[in-house]
């Protein structure tokens, strides 16, 4: 596999992982509003397992995408650099809010009472943060 093929494969996996976490968060938010109350905790637990796998893959392939640019990586002082730093900070914020969300879901799954209100809020916030990351990624790729 040459350098270009490897870079394309890494970019494909990066986009697929982002589609998984963003689509999944949107779906869990919708289920928290409209879905069966007795299933929401199980679905949220499955999403959390998927989320952290995808998060690791996203960071790994994100670094791979930067490596593919090599010395051609735009400088931090450029418009691209400012957008990239903004994206990194939003991703850091997303990761920071995701750990308490995952721990809360694990805690809630062990209890008997439904927690739809809390789940609606935390998955709504997650979906919003992911939408911002996607918008910034689009700007970096096509802006």
């Amino acid at each position, binding site marked *: 596999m040459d350098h270009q093929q490897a870079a394309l494969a890494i970019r494909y996996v990066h986009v697929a992982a982002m589609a998984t976490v963003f689509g999944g968060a949107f779906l869990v938010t919708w289920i928290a509003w409209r879905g069966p109350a007795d299933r929401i905790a199980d679905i949220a637990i499955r999403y*959390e397992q998927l989320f952290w796998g995808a*998060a690791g893959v996203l960071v790994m392939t994100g670094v*791979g995408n930067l490596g593919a640019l*090599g010395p051609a990586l735009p400088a931090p002082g450029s418009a691209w650099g400012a957008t990239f730093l903004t994206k990194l900070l939003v991703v850091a914020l997303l*990761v920071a809010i995701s*750990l308490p969300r*995952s*721990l*809360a879901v694990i805690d809630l799954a062990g209890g008997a009472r439904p927690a739809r209100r809390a789940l609606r809020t*935390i998955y709504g916030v997650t979906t919003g943060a992911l939408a911002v990351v996607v918008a910034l990624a689009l700007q970096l790729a096509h802006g």
Partner: protein
Amino acid sequence: MSGLTWALGTFHTTVIGIALLLLVYPGGSLGTTLGALSTITGLALFVALWTTTLFCTGRAIRGVRLLGGDRASTGAFYRRALRWGAVNGVLFAIALVAILAANALAVAEPSVGIGTMLAIAGFQGTFGSLFGLAIGAVAGLVLATLDLAALRLARSLASAG
């Protein structure tokens, strides 16, 4: 592997990755540094970091009740984080040297002595482990502080449900 180990271990790995990017990119040398690594080497390094961090996080929280009643004390949690953070630093330093040595061997000219390269790798691994021990211990304490803050927030979220 428990869901808690998976979430905490991957959280630690992603925090380390993002923190390194935030530290190195503003300096302007990130592209050159990453460009010097092959794709496979870069991926292998991240997988090594992820694997050692998951292993050490699992060992650090084994038998500790972090959620629900009868929770572990903060002091005991920090002691485990210090110990297993240091172990993680050593394991990753060894993996780093091993992967870079394997990469160097793969691209080396036939005239280069394998014995010399292995001796250099052994030397780097020994000193790298000492650095890894210190950096890992500090990182363990910082990450344990983030974990405890996240646990407090998680309990508030769960009780608000």
